[in-house]
């Protein structure tokens, strides 16, 4: 093995604290049974943020419409459970597959053009799907949302309980599996080629990386994972409504990722935890106007530089 391959292999190994942190996370529904609903909610958003990180942090595609895939996954999972089969894992697989197909189709639209074009196209797709879900009310329930989704037990044994412990476990396990998968993906040659494309598409092309094929592949993967997150959300809450496609959702997840830091897998998880904590703190204090403080936080964060949020020792320095 060459020294380069060795150093790459060393990078790919999970650190000890990652195992420890996951062990703690998996025990959370035990330790805080009264907060199980919140835990599963945060876990699902963390998964969603991780999927966005794959295209934003690793591949450099700015998307304002990632909720399109979240929403597609949510509606697919809800409809599948309602009309075809209530098994959660089967439904989740179907949700992932359907959004993967959608992602593959949409990936054609983000290959060319500037950041603005990509912003517009991704936002447009999300709005389009929201409009579609609104108008196809005989299938989706329109503005009232899709109600009456009853899920079967996970693996045929674990029933969803009212406290939400099963839901939290289920979401945590799926997210852990995705995390492990992504850990392999981003440290693989494929992952490194993505970072090359992010840093300089022209040079990536010049050294023989097929930029378009790689971007399509990663966009499809990210879409499928966002679909899983959406599917989890629909399955654990038994409900899917139009706001799964909303602009707010796409903007929020972008913010979470920025809080946690783009381009590393824990970014989405940390961001989701911090964002949700902030949300519940501020909205307990001023429920109606919490977006003002969110906006102020965003503006300040961007003015001071988002890289510095994660590096407190640089706060005193001037840029």
């Amino acid at each position, binding site marked *: 093995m060459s020294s380069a391959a060795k150093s790459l292999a060393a990078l790919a190994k999970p650190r000890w604290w990652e195992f420890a942190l996951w062990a703690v996370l998996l025990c959370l529904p035990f330790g805080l049974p009264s907060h199980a609903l919140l835990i599963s909610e945060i876990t699902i958003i963390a998964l969603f943020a991780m999927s966005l990180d794959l295209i934003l942090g690793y591949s450099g595609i700015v998307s304002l419409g990632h909720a399109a895939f979240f929403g597609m996954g949510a509606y697919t999972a809800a409809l599948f459970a309602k009309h075809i089969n209530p098994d959660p894992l089967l439904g989740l697989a179907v949700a992932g597959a359907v959004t993967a197909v959608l992602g593959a189709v949409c990936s054609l639209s983000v290959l060319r053009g500037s950041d603005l074009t990509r912003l517009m196209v991704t936002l447009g797709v999300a709005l389009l799907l929201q409009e579609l879900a609104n108008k196809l009310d005989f299938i989706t329930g329109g503005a009232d949302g899709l109600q009456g989704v009853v899920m079967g037990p996970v693996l045929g044994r674990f029933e969803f309980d009212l406290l939400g412990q099963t839901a939290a476990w289920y979401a945590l396990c799926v997210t852990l599996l995705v995390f492990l998968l992504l850990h392999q993906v981003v440290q693989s040659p494929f992952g490194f080629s993505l970072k090359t494309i992010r840093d300089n598409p022209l040079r990536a092309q010049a050294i023989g990386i097929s930029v378009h094929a790689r971007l399509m592949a990663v966009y499809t993967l990210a879409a499928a994972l966002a679909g899983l997150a959406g599917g989890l959300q629909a399955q654990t809450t038994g409900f899917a409504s139009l706001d799964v496609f909303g602009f707010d959702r796409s903007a929020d997840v972008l913010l979470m990722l920025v809080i946690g830091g783009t381009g590393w897998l824990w970014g989405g998880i940390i961001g989701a935890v911090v964002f949700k904590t902030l949300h519940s703190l501020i909205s307990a204090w001023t429920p109606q106007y919490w977006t003002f403080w969110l*906006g102020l936080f965003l503006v300040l964060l*961007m*003015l001071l530089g988002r890289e510095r949020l994660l590096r407190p020792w640089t706060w005193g320095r001037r840029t």
Partner: protein
Amino acid sequence: MLTILFDGVAYGMLLFILAIGLAVTLGLMNFINLAHGAFAMAGGYITVLFMQHAGLPFLLCVPLAFVFTAVLGALLEVTLYRRMYNKPHLDQVLFSIGLTFMAVAGVDYFVGSTQQLVQLPEFLKGRTELWDGALGMGHYRLAIIAVCAALTVALQLLLVRTRFGAQLRAAVDNQRVAAGMGIDVNRVFLITFAVGSGLAGLGGALGAEVLGLDPVFPMKFMIYFLIVVAVGGTSGLTGPLLAALLLGIADVAGKYYIPKLGAFIVYSLMIIILMWRPQGLFSRGSK
């Protein structure tokens, strides 16, 4: 049929005035300003508040809206926006989303979330029917078209005939060379940003009656402004103007003939156009 075309043109002209500031900011500073709609909303609210509380006539309030939002834009440019020009697009997007959130919540807090109504003066309220009703023209929409057309001509003259216009075009084409030739690029940026914001405010004031005015205005119309800019390109006034007219007519016609599909047509058209020509429909081609 003609009536729909007429309404579409009025709507499109309004969108053009609202979005032109955004096109300039984007072309000049390469800054993606999602908060542009907030300036338009500010213009609308300034008009409403002056009319309701100070009792000023509508015709006086509209220029006031321009002045106030231009000053607001200039202040924000100097204090906040200037620091963001060299940051990545992601930062700019999040920064301007943050500003939008603040504007929405702020207006909600101070004015309330209800829809605001604008009392038009009597002489703008009528409607003229031509050719046995084949073409019905609301007087107010006629006035909008006239004002917007006049503004467009004025802007074009400003851009092509004046010294400032030449400086602006030079700065858009190549900032560094322009600065090297002794053009004070920062000043050009500041004036352009202020005028662009002012125009958005003016559009917001004029459009309050047509588009509706409530705190979520910047979110609701953000996509429309962006469409005008993305489809029209940023290299001149003609592109955004044609894009705005196309969007206005497509939207009005779509909502009238196929109300079931609603905004569907506009979004799909936009995606197709941007996939076909990512640099915009009327741009000079890729740089």
